[in-house]
């Protein structure tokens, strides 16, 4: 395991109707690290994450996740990733616990009822076990979506703008969740256009602009002041 990086992307290209969204993206993410990808709207963040989650097929290049090629071992890779997207990907008319049990069973999780309860209380949804998703607020749905993504304890977590819709309490939960993931040698990739989230959570950073990685640095190399200034002035991000 230690030999293969968690995620290895080589020359990834993707275009929609000739609009090149990703051009020649190379990316390596090691086990036990968190990578934050900054990018303004339309920079290709979501497409990059969707390619990693095998939700869209790349036009060129290769992606290896945990040493496996995404064009082949798709089932095995799916078992090993958890995805939080823009939409919650849940069933409106089922309760929180039912949603988690359903998806947990799909992943073949053992003792799913206990696991689901534990995850829900970790995510601060302990009082909403039997509430239907339809009746949850947007932020609560987001929390449940994150619970769905981690129900099968995937070593790799992919989160597309996890901060949207979450309050400060939830953000703290997510932050500690990511910490526990990296401390257990998992890998976490998040995209964001919030400088606070990206720099405050102590992770490696990358900047995606016009479909290409234009900056990449390890956590300890990041000059916070410089990053802040660059992101604000050159990439139109908000603090």
């Amino acid at each position, binding site marked *: 395991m230690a030999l293969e990086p968690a995620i290895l992307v080589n020359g990834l290209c993707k275009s929609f109707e000739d609009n090149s969204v990703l051009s020649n993206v190379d990316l390596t993410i090691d086990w036990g690290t968190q990578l934050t990808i900054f990018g303004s709207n339309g920079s290709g963040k979501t497409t990059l994450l969707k390619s990693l989650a095998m939700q869209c097929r790349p036009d060129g290049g290769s992606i290896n996740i945990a040493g496996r090629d995404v064009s082949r071992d798709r089932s095995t890779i799916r078992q090993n990733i958890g995805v939080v997207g823009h939409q919650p990907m849940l069933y409106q008319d089922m309760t929180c616990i039912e949603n988690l049990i359903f998806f947990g069973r*799909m992943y073949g999780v053992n003792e799913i009822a206990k696991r689901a309860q534990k995850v829900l209380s970790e995510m601060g949804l302990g009082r909403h076990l039997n509430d239907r998703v339809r009746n949850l607020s947007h932020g609560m749905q987001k929390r449940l979506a994150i619970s769905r993504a981690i129900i099968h304890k995937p070593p790799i977590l992919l989160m597309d703008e996890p901060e949207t819709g979450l309050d400060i309490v939830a953000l703290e939960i997510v932050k500690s969740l990511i910490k526990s993931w990296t401390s257990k040698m998992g890998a976490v990739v998040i995209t964001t256009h919030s400088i606070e989230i990206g720099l405050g959570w102590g992770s490696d950073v990358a900047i995606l602009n016009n479909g290409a990685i234009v900056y990449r640095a390890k956590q300890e190399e990041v000059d916070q002041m410089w990053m802040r200034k660059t992101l604000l002035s050159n990439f139109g991000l908000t603090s």
Partner: protein
Amino acid sequence: MKNFFVPILLIVWKDILTEIRNKDIILASFVFAILVLVICNFAFEITPATVHILASGILWISFIFAGILVMTHSFVVENDLNSLEGLLLCPISRDALYWGKMLSLFLFMMVVELLLLPIFAVLFDYNVLSPSLILIMVLATIGFATVGTLFASMSVNTRAREIMLPILFFPVVTPVLISAVEASMSIIGGGTAIIDIRGWIQLLLLFDVVYLVVCPWAFGFVVEE
């Protein structure tokens, strides 16, 4: 093998649970089908003398229109909070996903059709229930659900999805419709022997088998595109 069947049953269970909660699919399409029966009554002036000739056609008109609603809805549910993406992220084979959706579609359509039989009997004072009719209904509904699952999964991703599904669906299932109407007519009309419908049953079986092979294959391309 267990890994293949568990997700199928889970998807069916999930669809049934959702349906019991909101009753969106069955109630709406059932009411719609009754409306079709009422319209047919005025359109064809059904009398005790003509009912045995018209019964089969009217039944299948209402079945197929109700079925279209069920099909559209079974994928609209998945589109609500984009839960189809959630299903696709799961480490299950795309075939299992197809079979799950197809099976629940089949069940819902069968429930609506079976509910319609007594209504039909009451409205037109004509009992159509018989074991061989149920057999025809099962075979034809498998055909509808097989093609319907594929086309509904396609049309839900297009613009004008409500229009798209019938345009794609009706021409392709003409053989099912012809066989079902003809076979039911001989059963309901009573006069003809069972030997007459054997050919139609074979045709329905042929259609079902062919599309049970082709549609899951094609479904893989629809969702992995």
